[in-house]
């Protein structure tokens, strides 16, 4: 027993005190910075594996981006450059497009607007049900990490439940396979209202690298509105936690 206490003490303090101020290692590929326009020698759009780059005006769709960095390597004039800024969740699909206008802080501020009805009902307690529908276990592991002693999301009253009956929000990962189409709809129906939907990772948001597959059925997203988009491949736990805190106005 005394050994366990010693081990516990040597662990020290593991949690990140302020998740909003936390900075991820500089090598991390987070929010891209767009500089200028696509000139004659711009080829980065042709190397993008998911077609996330548009030329006029030069923009990058965070919902399609898999954050591989191939475009940055193909840029001769620094047109696209990934930063380690991780707070890049947004509340509507049109905000997923990153353009040359504005700073990272402005992107974050515009990205998620707190909705008063969500804040009133879920502001102090938000229980989530997670469904993986073709997720590769990358997003799933990062969501699990959000609950570990480092990120400790439950301290904010935000947690995952084992049953849809107890859930306020549905968190979806994966590109939505045909074989999960029925189960995801049933899970959503099993949740009592009011309820929100959160799409996590480029697969869930756009189909990602699997967008061209015949084995997908993304009808669910035509039938239901998504309240929060969490970009990444997979998203960093801090991207997810900060996104939800912003929705809740915290």
């Amino acid at each position, binding site marked *: 027993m005394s050994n366990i206490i010693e*081990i516990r003490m040597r662990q020290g303090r593991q949690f990140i005190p302020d998740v909003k101020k936390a900075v991820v290692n500089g090598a991390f590929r987070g929010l891209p910075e767009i500089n200028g326009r696509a000139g004659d020698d711009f080829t980065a759009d042709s190397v993008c594996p998911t077609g996330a780059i548009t030329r006029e005006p030069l923009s990058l769709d965070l919902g399609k981006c898999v*954050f591989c960095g191939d475009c940055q*390597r193909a840029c001769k004039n620094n047109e696209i450059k990934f930063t380690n800024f991780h707070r890049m969740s947004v509340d509507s699909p049109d905000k997923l497009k990153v353009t040359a206008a504005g700073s990272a802080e402005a992107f974050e501020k515009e990205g998620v607007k707190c909705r008063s009805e969500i804040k009133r009902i879920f502001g102090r307690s938000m229980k989530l049900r997670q*469904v993986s529908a073709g997720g590769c*276990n990358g997003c799933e592991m*990062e969501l699990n990490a959000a609950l570990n002693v*480092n990120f400790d999301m439950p301290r904010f009253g935000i947690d995952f439940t084992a049953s849809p009956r107890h859930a306020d929000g549905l968190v979806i990962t994966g590109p939505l396979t045909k*074989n999960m189409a029925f*189960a995801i709809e049933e899970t959503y129906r099993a949740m009592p209202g009011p309820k929100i939907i959160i799409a996590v990772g480029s697969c869930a948001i756009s189909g990602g690298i*699997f967008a061209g597959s015949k084995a997908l059925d993304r009808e669910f997203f035509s039938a239901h509105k998504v309240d929060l988009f969490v970009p990444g491949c997979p998203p960093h736990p801090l991207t997810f936690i900060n996104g939800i805190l912003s929705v809740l106005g915290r």
Partner: protein
Amino acid sequence: MDHFKLTKNNRPVALKDVPEFSMTEFRPAVISMCETGKRVIGFFGVDAGPSRTRLYAALADDDASSILLSSCLLEAGGSYRSFTQDATMFHIFERELFEAFGITPAGHPWLKPVRYPAEGKAENMDAYPFFASTGSEMHEVSVGPVHAGIIEPGHFRFQCAGEKVQHLEIQLGYQHRGVEPLLERAGAEGPHIAESVCGDTVVGHASAYASLFESLSGADAPRRAHVIRAIALELERAAMHTAGLSAMAGDIAYLVGSAVFGANRTKIINASLRLCGSRFGRGLVRPGGVLFDIDAATAKEIKDSVNEAYDRIREMAEQMFGAASVLSRLQQTGVVAKQDAVKIGLTGFAARASGIAIDAREDHPSGAYINFPVRKQVLESGDCFARAYLRYMEIGQSIRLINDMCDNLPQGNIMAEEPSPSGNVICASVVEGWRGGIVYIGITDENGMMKKIKVKDPSFNNWYGLALAVRNNGISDFPLCNKSFDLSYCGNDL
């Protein structure tokens, strides 16, 4: 051996050199090989003209470090006598073949489709009933596809007598994304798809894919790139084994273990982040080499990070595996006996925990493992304890390898010219990922375009091991047994 073309891991063979037989010759030849200890690592069809399928068999001879290839021509929609009757390890391969091509292995004991593929030719899985049993004590428990935690979907159907599991049927397929056709059609996005086949084994799958392309082209990545790949692969192994110990500790309510292992996994994956900008090793491995170099400062940061993590992991593991309350939960729970493990073709750490000495890093070494040899570690008891303790042992081994490789990085480039595959060749590429052997087999057409890419994650073999492990165990031990195998749903479903 007359019936096979002998080759090695990552050594391409001209398609015309792979012998082709009728089923009457092919079947006994393949089965006699399996009776002398060869393992099936590939058994799949390729379209061969109108209504004909060429069936390939790839067998691993682990003692001789060789891979045996043979083939047989079949009529579409035809039938042959099931291999599974004589060599159980074919059971899942034959189900897959049946589903994809509609070819019936007659006499197969449980010919249920594997993953309801969009492009499949067999009947829908819904029409195929679950195994059921009757009796006054019997009851059925149905779990999934959506589970209580944050994990991938799959369905488990238990037949229980009281609290005891008599039989477990695992029905997967929910994660099917059509990976193989996407990979076959892919251009530059191929490596990105390979990284997402199984997102907890990014480096393993990406390395197998990259090696396959290099080998089919008769090219190789620079030595320095191979060592950087191996460092990333060992980081992945150490991180996932630590995550597995954390989850198992959680399942037996040993919460301090769960917390400590979880926190130290973070340090290991942050070393991957430092290396390539992704906690899962994404964006690092590409056909031809790697995209990120390791300079002296990075090497030091990686070493410091993993060594600090390992100090904490070791003291926690020594404490945990010395606690009677822990051992009583792990020992003799979820046993897979060696003879059963051999029979069903178990692979990876689950096989090594049941006394089967296989590890592709030693048996079929390629890349960095030629210069940094690995001695495989084996335990005998085949229970949850063996699978957990072996993972702890392998964490230590990976940390030593990472240190050694960081200290002895060969000089040179990290990226060779992009490989361009030759025409009409076949090659198998095997990488020992943290779960076990990942096999990519590629076949090119006359223009060097990909005609077939067959992917096999170790989970494909090992799910049936879990089904055997839970027999005669209390159903409440299922989560523990499940986590002790730590299998991939999407790696199986593709």
